[in-house]
């Protein structure tokens, strides 16, 4: 698999709940989600292929494009801070 189509493999989540002096950090192994999703994706491939034929969509180009979109999520971060609460999510 080329590196340009690898989706984000991990995510870090920093949470500082209200009233806490300091927060905690979670490391989420997203690659496990992708591993679990892979068999479902493989099962769905024939249906996707038929759907692509019916709607006139280029099948492999669509798969590559969808993987590229997933790959592009690398570096996305969202931070929300309200009063004494803070949540920060970063995709790696």
């Amino acid at each position, binding site marked *: 698999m080329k590196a340009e189509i690898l989706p984000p493999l991990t995510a870090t989540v920093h949470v500082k709940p209200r009233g806490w002096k300091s927060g905690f950090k979670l490391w989420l192994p997203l690659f496990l989600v992708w591993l679990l999703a892979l068999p479902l994706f493989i099962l769905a491939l024939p249906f996707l292929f038929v759907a692509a034929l019916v709607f006139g*969509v280029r099948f492999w180009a669509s798969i590559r494009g*969808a993987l*590229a*979109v997933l790959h592009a999520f690398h570096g*996305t*971060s969202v931070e929300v801070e*309200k009063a004494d609460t803070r949540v920060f999510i970063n995709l790696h």
Partner: protein
Amino acid sequence: MTDNRRQILDMLASGKLTAEEAERLIAALERNGAGATALSESDRTKYLRVLVDTKDPLDGPTKVNVRVPMQLLRAGVRLTGVIPASAREEVNAALRKQGITFDINNVTPQNLEELIEQLRELTVDVDNENTKVRVFCE
């Protein structure tokens, strides 16, 4: 001849670019000065940033800071390449119906790069009594 100009001409020769696209790219190079060189990877616009700062009298202040990679925009535009021609026409028709004269067929990776480069200079600031929104590229 700069490397960029040579690259554009090579792409034109190999049919990857139309004459019109090549002309636009060369014009863009010239606009950037005679000694223009390609933007290095570090100079390229990498992220779209959205900052929201609200002050709710009841809940207090809320800050949201979102960083979206420009690569996502590029990947999304490339995905438009797989839209069937009939669907493209429907999209164009729907846009025209809304008074937007925009041809989705013109959204190409080359045009997108130009657009993203122009976005470097763009900052959108919305400021009202309780809310500040700032959108910019970095």
